[in-house]
């Protein structure tokens, strides 16, 4: 599987602990990335639409008082997220072996 874009990764990550709506995902992604990843509306619509087609996330009913769309992670989406997290851990470990080692030598 191809690596996920940052937006895809953060959307899946933000849904890992439970359903959320677009604005909530955007805020969480901003917080988790320490202000680096802002997911704009066009990006959010395209990414959520694409992930719904792939069956990684789905819409779930929102409370009657809330008009916003709620998204939730599917089992397939969870697998994709965990696989990507493994891949990133492996990348980080490889970098740590080389760069971390050089730092230690210095």
């Amino acid at each position, binding site marked *: 599987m191809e690596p996920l874009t940052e*937006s895809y990764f953060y959307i899946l990550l933000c849904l890992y602990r439970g359903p959320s709506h677009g604005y909530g995902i955007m805020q969480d992604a901003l917080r988790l990335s320490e202000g680096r990843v802002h*997911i704009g*509306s*066009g990006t959010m619509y*395209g990414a959520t*639409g694409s992930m719904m087609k792939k069956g990684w996330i789905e819409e779930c009913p929102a409370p009657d008082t809330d008009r916003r769309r709620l998204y939730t992670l599917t089992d397939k989406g969870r697998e994709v997220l965990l696989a990507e997290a493994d891949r990133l851990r492996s990348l980080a470990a490889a970098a740590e072996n080389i760069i971390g080692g050089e730092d230690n030598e210095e």
Partner: protein
Amino acid sequence: MKNKKHRYVMYPAWEYRREAEDLNKFSEEGWQLEKGGCFHSVFYRDENARYRYALDYNQSIDDPVRYRDTFAEQGWEFVSDTFNGWHFFRKKYDPALPPAEYEIYTDEQSVRDMAGRWSRLGTTLGAIELAVTVLNAWMAFREPSVTGILITLACLMLGIVILTGARRIRRQDTDRPRKSLRWCFSLVFLLLAAGLVYSFFRVHADSYSEYVYDPAAGPWTWSFDVHLPDFYTLDAEADTDANVDITVTDKDGKVRAVFGGGQDLRAKAAMFLMPGTYDVTVQYAPDTPDGTAGMFRFEVD
């Protein structure tokens, strides 16, 4: 003071960022967009509001309600859309917010997806335009006319401009508007307009008459005027039992075309004619019996 303003201007698709910047500028001047369009936009007066605008291109939205809801969640208000898939949004401007708050596409992939959507359409339109150019060129070659040449040039230029624009939008080379491309785009419309005007003022003359041979009266002549230099075709038909010569001459007596020697003549002659008066002369052969009748039809187009 007027509270509404209509603006008639066309932005090429690859200048969508410049269009949004212009809308932001108008908003700062107190003119807020009410309806955006490809050729015509409407603004209303509100000096207290300040908006930032964003244009999205998406011609195949599978869930329009979810689409607008997703924008609304981040404070984007839908303004209007166009028949060809452009959507105008605006958000209240707060100088304290970072510029990223006013971007709707925030990663490379989604920018590329959006650009790819228009780029595919642009490439298809450009290719169709070039095919139309070939067809026009073939027609202009078969029946030359200034209008045909102008329209062929306009189609060729439009095809090149669209393909170049599609390439620019695909490469996201949209921050620096290219004046040359904009000039070429304007030139397309000038060429088309010139072609239409030329076609309108071109001469179209015809004559259908009977001419009975009378040696004392001399040859019979029909005249037509040309106002614009162009390629013209003289379509001649003669229905008579005698041999006739038909000659086209300009005002200096210079022969421009000759049909002749036959009965039941059907002939066409293509000529480039400058403005002036031209004579079409019908001359019966000397051995023609008096009283021989003939029907003659001429058409200049």
